[in-house]
C-alpha cells in the first residue's frame, strides 16, 4: 500500500455513523418481512385468548405444539429449496410415500428402528432423484416436483394397494404421547431439526453456497460453486426431512395411510412465505418458517376452538398467506 492510497483512505471517512448498540437488535430496513410471522403469531394468540380464555391453557398449548411438529419439519426442508430459488411441491406426497414404506416394513415384521430407517431412506432417495433431475437435467424445479407430487402419491397407492397399515408399537406410542413438560417428544424432535438446520444454513459453507446459488446462480458459478450439486443437495434434504416427518405422522395417526395430505403441502409453502423467505431465492431464515408453522397451527386450532367449521380453515390459511405477502411487499 502506497502513501497515496493511504491518504485516500483517510479522506474517505466512512459515511455511515456508528449505530448505537440497541439498533443492532432492530431488523435492518427491508427485513421486516422476517418479523411478520412472530408478530402475526402474537396477534393471533391475543385475539384467540380474548375470544376464548382456554386458548392458552396447558392442554391446548400442548396440543398445538404437538400438531405443529410435522409442519415445522416439512417447512424447514421447504426453506432450503426455496432459498435456492426453487420449490418442493412434492414434500407432502414424499411424506405419504415414506409413511407407506414404513408400513411395509412394519407389516413385514421388521424392527421399528429399521422401519424408521426405511421411511427416511425412501424420502432421501425420492428427494435425491428429483434433485438430480433438477440440477443435472436442467428442468425447472416447479415441473419436476409437480411430477414428483403425482408420482409419490401414486406410488404410495400402488405399494399399499390403497389400504392403510395399522402400526401399534410402544416406541411409536411414546413418541406421540410422551413429553417433557408441555413440550412433546415430537415437537422436541422438530425443534432439534430446526436448530440443526439453522446451523447448517448460517454456520457452514454449504449454507452460504445455498444462499449464493439462490441469490445469483451466475455469481455462484463464477466463484466455482457447483449449483447443480446444491440443487441435488437441497432436494435430497427436503426429501429426507419429509421421510422423518413421515415417522411422526405414522406415530400420530397410529397407521400408515395412503392419504393425499394436500393440506401439508399448502401449509409448508405458506409457512415459508409467512416466515419471510424470498420466493426468488437468496434470502432465508429458519426461525421465520418455524414461526410461520406455529402461526398456521394456532390459526387452525383457534378457529376450531371457536366452533368455526373445518371447511373454512383452508380459506383462512389462504387469506393469511396472501395478506402476509401483501404486507411484506407494501413495506418495501
Amino acid at each position, binding site marked *: *500500500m*502506497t502513501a*497515496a*492510497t*493511504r491518504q*485516500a*483512505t483517510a479522506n*474517505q471517512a*466512512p*459515511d*455511515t455513523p456508528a449505530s448505537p448498540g440497541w439498533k443492532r437488535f432492530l431488523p*435492518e430496513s427491508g427485513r421486516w418481512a422476517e418479523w411478520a410471522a412472530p408478530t402475526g403469531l402474537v396477534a393471533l394468540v391475543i385475539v384467540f385468548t380474548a375470544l376464548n380464555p382456554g386458548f392458552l391453557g396447558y392442554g391446548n398449548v400442548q396440543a398445538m405444539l404437538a400438531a405443529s411438529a410435522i409442519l415445522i419439519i416439512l417447512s424447514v426442508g421447504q426453506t432450503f429449496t426455496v432459498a435456492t430459488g426453487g420449490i418442493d411441491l412434492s414434500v407432502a406426497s414424499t411424506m405419504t410415500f415414506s409413511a407407506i414404506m414404513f408400513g411395509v416394513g412394519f407389516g413385514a415384521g421388521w424392527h421399528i428402528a429399521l422401519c424408521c430407517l426405511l421411511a427416511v431412506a425412501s424420502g432421501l432417495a425420492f428427494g435425491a432423484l428429483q434433485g438430480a433431475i433438477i440440477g443435472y437435467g436442467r428442468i425447472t424445479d416447479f415441473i419436476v416436483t409437480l411430477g414428483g407430487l403425482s408420482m409419490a402419491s401414486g406410488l404410495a397407492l400402488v405399494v399399499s394397494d390403497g389400504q392403510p397399515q395399522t402400526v401399534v408399537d410402544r416406541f411409536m406410542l411414546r413418541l406421540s404421547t410422551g413429553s417433557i413438560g408441555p413440550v412433546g417428544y415430537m415437537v422436541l424432535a422438530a425443534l432439534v431439526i430446526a436448530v440443526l438446520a439453522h*446451523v447448517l444454513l*448460517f*454456520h*457452514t*459453507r454449504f*449454507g*452460504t*453456497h445455498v*444462499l*449464493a446459488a*439462490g*441469490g*445469483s446462480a*451466475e*455469481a*455462484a*458459478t*463464477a*466463484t*466455482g*460453486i457447483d449449483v447443480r450439486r446444491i440443487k441435488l443437495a437441497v432436494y435430497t434434504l427436503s426429501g429426507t426431512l419429509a421421510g422423518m416427518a413421515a415417522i411422526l405422522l405414522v406415530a400420530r395417526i397410529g397407521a400408515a395411510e395412503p392419504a393425499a395430505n394436500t393440506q401439508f403441502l399448502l401449509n409448508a409453502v405458506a409457512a415459508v412465505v409467512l416466515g419471510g423467505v*424470498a420466493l426468488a431465492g*437468496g*434470502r432465508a431464515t429458519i426461525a421465520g418458517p418455524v414461526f410461520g408453522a406455529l402461526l398456521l397451527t394456532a390459526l387452525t386450532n383457534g378457529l376450531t376452538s371457536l366452533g368455526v367449521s373445518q371447511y373454512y380453515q383452508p380459506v383462512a390459511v389462504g387469506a393469511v398467506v396472501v395478506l402476509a405477502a401483501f404486507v411484506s411487499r407494501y413495506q418495501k
Partner: protein
Amino acid sequence: MTSELVTVRGLNLSFGNVRALRDVDMSLAEGEITAIVGDNGAGKSTLVRCLCGVHRADSGEIVFDGRTVSFSSPEEARHAGIETVHQNLALVEDLTVWQNLFLNRELTKGFGPLQVLDRKGMRRQAEEMVSALAVNVPAVGARVRRLSGGQRQAVAICRAAGFSSRLVIMDEPTAALGVQETERVETLIRSLREDGHAVLLISHNFDQVMRLADQVWVMRSGRCVAGRRTAETSAAEIVSLITGALAA
C-alpha cells in the same frame, strides 16, 4: 524484459456459427498491467473467459506460469491463482460484503467433517482486505444490494486481489462508473501491480489504457491483430488498429 506469466497460442473458439476467437496469440508479463482493446463483439470477453475457466477453447494452447493448462471450471482457475472480475460483476447481492469476499473460500473451524464457518475470522480478514486496498465501503457487514456501483466494483476487485492470486483479470471494470469512482478503481488497479499481481484489463477507454497499461493488445473480429508497448504507441495508433485503418 520481465518474464511471461501467460502465453496464448493459436486459440480458437466458436459458438455455433460465430467464430468468437480465431487463432489468437498473445501474452502477458508478470508484474505488468496488460490491456486488451477492441470493438464490441471483438472477442475480448470470450478470450478472458477461456483464461479463467468459464469457456474451453476448441483448439490452441494456454501456458500459465510455465505449464500448459486447460481449466475445466472457474474453480480450477482460481485454484491456480487466476481471479476474475467479470463484466457483470458476479457478486451475490443478498449476501454481505464479507460473505462475497469469501464466497467459496470460506474459513472454517472444527474437527474433521464437523466444520463450522469462522464468521468472526472472515469479518476481521475482510476488514483487513478492504482497508489494505483503501476500498471505500460502508461496512463489511453490509449487504451488497446497498452498495453503489463503484463500491460493488471495489468489492469485486478486492476479492480478486485477495487469496494470493497471480493474475487478476478485469473485464471493463470502470464501464459503469463516474469520474471519481473510476479514479478510485484506477488507483486500485495500480496498487495491485505494486503488490506484484499481474493484471489483464479490458477497457474501451483509450486514455485509461494509455495511463495504466504497460502492454496493449488489439482485437478485431475474433483475431488478436496487434500488440504494442504503451510507451511506444499513441491513442491515435490504437484507434486505427481497432478500426482496421492501419494494418498491423
